[in-house]
Every structure is written in structure tokens, then in C-alpha cells.
């Protein structure tokens, strides 16, 4: 499932995928894979992304039940 909340939070901070990747110490392709829903990051990386974007884990990564 695509992570549109991450994408919009990144855009709100005016950060490119490359810039966010450098700030959290991963490759640009990894940020791209997370946003596309192709990769589930570890909690460590989730926290690093949340800190950079000023969001909580819930705001960026918590998925509500589909029902």
C-alpha cells in the first residue's frame, strides 16, 4: 500500500526524496520504495524519518483497519 502520508509530509517540508534519504542515512531508492509501499522499513528507520519530518509514528506509519 502506498504511503501517501509520508510523501505529503516530505513535500510539506519541501524535501526531495534524495534530501530526505541523506538526512536519514539511506539511499533515495529506499525512500522511494517506502513511499510506493514496496518496502516495510524497520522501526529504527521509521523513527529517523519521523524525527526529520517532525511527525509521530502514528501520523506517518499507522494503518487503520480497512473495514
Amino acid at each position, binding site marked *: 500500500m502506498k504511503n501517501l502520508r509520508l510523501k505529503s509530509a516530505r513535500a510539506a517540508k519541501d524535501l526531495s*526524496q534524495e534530501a530526505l534519504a541523506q538526512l536519514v542515512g539511506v*539511499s533515495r531508492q*529506499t525512500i*522511494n520504495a517506502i513511499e510506493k509501499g514496496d518496502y516495510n522499513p524497520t522501526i529504527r528507520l521509521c523513527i529517523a524519518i519521523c524525527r526529520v519530518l517532525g511527525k509521530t509514528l502514528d501520523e506517518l506509519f499507522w494503518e487503520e483497519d480497512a473495514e
Partner: protein
Amino acid sequence: MKQNFWWLAGALCGVAVVLILFLIKRSVQGQNCEYDERQTAARGKAYQYAFFTTAILELIYVCLEAAGISFADPSMGPLLGVLCGVAVFAVTAIFKDAYVSLRESTRSAILLPLFVLGVNLLIGIPKLLDGAAIVDGRLTFEAINLIIAALFAVVLAAIVIHWFRRKHAERDRGDE
């Protein structure tokens, strides 16, 4: 016996030169191969594919030898399986964006395979032309340079294809 000694001495010298160059590069540039968590997982998967490829090819080689079908010398046949495994690892890692480490650029990742490909072609083509690489329809150890050149040609092709695909996808997306 004397020929074996010089062959072994040459091989050891080659390994020593590569090791020294690697240590010099590492002391100058520091630890260059740093992969993020997704890349590490992807490389693990690539190692897995490479391991099973090598194992299956070695099994096929042993079965063919046992059946009296021999396409390569005993010094060459098992190496083919290992080199195919290396190719599977490299190509899988490339297409999963896990071949180039965080501190490397695609351009620098292309230079080494290009250099190795060129050197091995220079050594391998004369051996093919003078008939030393294939004797009686069987690959001999003299073909090793051409096989390594083929391996690095595959790696280079994978890097270039993946690079173009990525650029194309980024253009379609109009960047993020």
C-alpha cells in the same frame, strides 16, 4: 612440476597485488561499502539466489561428467558454476538497487567492471584465436579470461539497462 610452481606463484602474486590495491584504496577513502537496511536485505536475497544457482550448476556439471558428457576441463567446469553464481548475485543486486553502496555513484560502479572487462578481453581473445581456450570441443582453463569478460559484460549491461530504466521512470514521474 616446475610449471605448476610458476603458475601458483603467478596466481599468488595476482592475489597479493589485488589485496594491496584494496588496502591502499580503503586507507585512502575509508570504508566505502555502506548499505542501508533495504539494500542489505536485498543483497541477502541476491546471495541466496547466487548460492542456489551455483549449487544447481555444480550438480548439473557433476551429473554430466558422470554420464560421460564433458564440455569443460575439471579445472574450468566447477568455476563456471561459481562465476554464474556471481553473475546472478550482481544482476539481482543491481535490479534491486542494492549494488551501488550509499557512498558510491553509478559512474564509479561502472569503471571497475569496465576495466576488468577490457583487461580480460585483451588477454582472452589471443588465447581464443590461437586455439588454447577450446581444445577438442572442451573449454580449458585458458578460457577463464573470456568467461570473466563475459561475466563483467553481463554486469555492465545490467547496470546500464537499470540506469536507463530508472531515468525513464523518473522522467515519467516528473520527479517527486
